[in-house]
């Protein structure tokens, strides 16, 4: 049954002459999960916001949107409030009141629901989402993942027919995002709600989506089911620029033979690749692990027996942490949630004072302040970095003199954003500018906390290349990441932080090829056939050699 129909719909904002959406025709059936993908600025969010009239900025519309075959304009506000729910990406601003329970009740109160029905619904939804433990807590006592779950629950409590999720997990850590995705999966199988999800990273919701919409410059490039989508991309994409939307586990199988069936998940891919095991006689060990000769390099700083605990807690976050950062190295620090990664970084840059142990800096820096003046720090939340009215003002000081990294502004397409206010940028754009700003500082050491957060795949690879490039020019880089694929591709050395200490500190290649679960999807899939492949590029090279 058709629930939503866009009929030749166009839209432009009042302050802009370009059409954001051009002649959209789209028909969505009830109970489906539709994934909207596309680069940032392709019009995904604008398209979805057009369904939620309360949220739409002023602009000109052409064409019609039909909800249950009736024009959206003809519905009363109350019905639209109830039947279309919208969850945005910013977690804390969507949280209105102080307590979790009052947040859950907010929508129902506005809909004039009788108290006994309200009680029943709140009880039901809190049990379903497992919010019993946090039900009485304040918003500042719960984590970001829990907050987003409450946001979702407080929309679902109004029982919407259509649920719009605009990059819902872009600000969550991997464990919370998994949790979120599983909840959506459960909801989808238990209800007839229609889900419209916009995402930059296709692999998150790929498994549970029914149909995919690929948007490009305000038009719909593709609309159909997953299989057709993969085939469409391989058929139409001559320059391979859209390949970036395809998850690695599919890419590998399709690279072996384009006519292979599309795998459903990683496990399926492993099964498919194992059928090739017999066909390939003997696969030579294509990549040799380089001997790690213990060359004593000049280090930039050394952490010795570091202990740290928060004043409020009894347990040490960091216990006996040892780490040596060599000059011109590119270190990725990985580890689970709460393993102390950010705490370690903040100890390095002296925001926190270690309880025990010390950090010894290179002799080049006579005082601690000399060291601290020569580093750039990119925090997890980048918005506080911006204190001026426009991006141009922020970056102006870097144009003075010859800055070797000035090209980065064009490379990352920041020049288009120069006139804008930092608060008007999207999460991805902000992240780009923040990274550029910290590089333009000409630091000796660049410390980054989750640099790839909020970024789409294209920008991610661009940033990765820039980081490798400036690393070659002599900047030492340390970054924390949850993104194992990124760490695998763009780091020389990796450190695994576990239980407050550095459990593993090795070259990235060694680290990931020896790990069994905590490794890139390429390595997971190809391990049984070819060893020591970390990235898709490694696989491509290796496969090329085999076929020769």
């Amino acid at each position, binding site marked *: 049954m058709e629930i939503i129909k866009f009929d030749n719909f166009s839209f432009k904002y009042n302050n802009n002459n370009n059409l954001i959406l051009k002649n959209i025709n789209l028909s969505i059936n009830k109970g489906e999960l539709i994934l909207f993908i596309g680069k940032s600025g392709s019009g995904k969010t604008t398209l979805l916001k057009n369904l*939620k009239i309360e949220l739409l900025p002023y602009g000109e519309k052409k064409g019609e949107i039909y909800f249950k075959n009736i024009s959206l304009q003809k519905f009363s506000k109350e019905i639209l409030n109830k039947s279309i729910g919208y969850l945005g990406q910013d977690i*804390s601003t*969507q949280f209105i009141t102080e307590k979790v329970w009052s947040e859950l009740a907010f929508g129902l109160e*506005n809909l004039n629901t009788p108290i006994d029905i309200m009680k029943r619904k709140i009880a039901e939804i809190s049990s379903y989402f497992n919010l019993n433990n946090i039900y009485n807590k304040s918003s500042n006592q719960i984590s970001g993942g829990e907050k987003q779950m409450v946001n979702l629950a407080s929309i679902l409590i109004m029982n919407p027919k259509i649920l719009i999720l605009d990059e819902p997990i872009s600000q969550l850590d991997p464990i919370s995002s998994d949790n979120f995705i599983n909840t959506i999966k459960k909801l989808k199988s238990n209800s007839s709600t229609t889900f419209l999800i916009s995402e930059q990273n296709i692999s998150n919701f790929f498994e549970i989506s029914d149909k995919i919409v690929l948007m490009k410059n305000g038009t719909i490039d593709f609309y159909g089911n997953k299989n057709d989508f993969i085939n469409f991309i391989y058929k139409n994409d001559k320059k391979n620029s859209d390949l970036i939307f395809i998850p690695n586990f599919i890419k590998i199988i399709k690279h072996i033979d384009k006519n292979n069936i599309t795998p459903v998940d990683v496990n399926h891919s492993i099964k498919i690749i194992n059928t090739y095991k017999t066909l390939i006689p003997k696969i030579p060990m294509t990549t040799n692990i380089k001997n790690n000769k213990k060359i004593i390099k000049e280090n930039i700083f050394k952490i010795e027996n570091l202990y740290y605990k928060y004043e409020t807690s009894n347990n040490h976050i960091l216990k006996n942490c040892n780490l040596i950062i060599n000059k011109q190295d590119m270190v990725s620090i990985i580890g689970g949630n709460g393993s102390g990664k950010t705490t370690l970084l903040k100890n390095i840059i002296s*925001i926190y004072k270690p309880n025990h142990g010390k950090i010894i800096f290179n002799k080049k820096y006579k005082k601690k302040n000399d060291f601290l003046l020569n580093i750039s720090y990119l925090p997890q939340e980048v918005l506080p970095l911006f204190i001026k009215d426009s991006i141009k003002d922020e970056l102006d000081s870097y144009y003075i003199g010859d800055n070797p990294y000035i090209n980065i502004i064009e490379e990352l397409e920041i020049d288009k954003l120069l006139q804008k206010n930092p608060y008007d940028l999207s999460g991805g754009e902000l992240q780009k500018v923040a990274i550029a700003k910290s590089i333009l500082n000409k630091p000796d050491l660049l410390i980054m906390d989750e640099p790839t957060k909020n970024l789409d795949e294209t920008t991610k690879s661009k940033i990765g290349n820039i980081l490798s490039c400036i690393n070659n020019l002599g900047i030492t880089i340390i970054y924390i990441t949850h993104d194992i694929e990124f760490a695998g591709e763009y780091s020389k050395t990796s450190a695994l932080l576990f239980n407050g200490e550095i459990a593993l500190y090795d070259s990235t290649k060694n680290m990931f090829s020896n790990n069994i679960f905590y490794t890139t999807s390429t390595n997971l899939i190809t391990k049984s056939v070819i060893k020591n492949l970390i990235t898709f590029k490694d696989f491509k090279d290796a496969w090329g050699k085999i076929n020769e």
Partner: protein
Amino acid sequence: MFIYLNPTICYGYFIFIILSIILINHPIYILISFLVSIFIFIRIETKKNIILKFRKILFIFIFISLVNPIFVHKGLTILFYIKDKPITLESILYGINNSLMISSLFTWFDILNKIVSSDKIVYIFKKYIPSSVLIFSICLNIIPQLKEKYKQMEEAHLISYNKNIFSKIKISLNFIAIIISWQLEKSIETAYSMNSRGYENKQKTIYKTYNFKKIDFIFIIIILFLTSFFIIGYKSFSFYPIIFFQYNIIFSPISYISFLILCFLPIFFYKKEL
């Protein structure tokens, strides 16, 4: 057990205790209230807060006990002179009395805060002034966010390296201005979120209302019962010009004891809230 009580009664009880200390101004009742409030405070607070609290009380105690005899020269029992100004016994005792009263008031407020969470006051008034209550609730949500943002700001700009206090203050003021505009900017999104969840609808219901239950009535009866004894046995006490008080050998002790039990009530009803 306190959480099972209607918050109106909780607030009513505390207001009653606080008002009666202020209005009666009788050293024995004040001493009772001071000792009991300190006792309850020690029972429900953490060690760190208790030490902080004692420091505060000591300061108030010394300050007021000294200030009163220096500036007030009423009273007939002159002990000595400072620069021709008489220091009287009465004014010293009155100062001590007042300092005990004020520190016990502070302690009662702390206990009130600890026992009845501040958001509950919201739900007493929500029926009558819904929009003001909503604004209050939004503010309660925003304050911790502002604190968090300030911390992020400091960390992002590595302000802790700056040793110069004056430039630090200047930067901090600048940060505060930025944070406020940041918060305002973000508040628009909160407004959208409110709007998309139907805030503009006129007819509304209230989810959490507190009904009066049996235990509430029992509590009221206990309070009334004790209060009647406490008032019957009350005899006035005056400091100036000379200390003068009346005492009834039967009723006065009854009054003191009933006031003591009245003050102890929260400890019977206290259960740590989550």
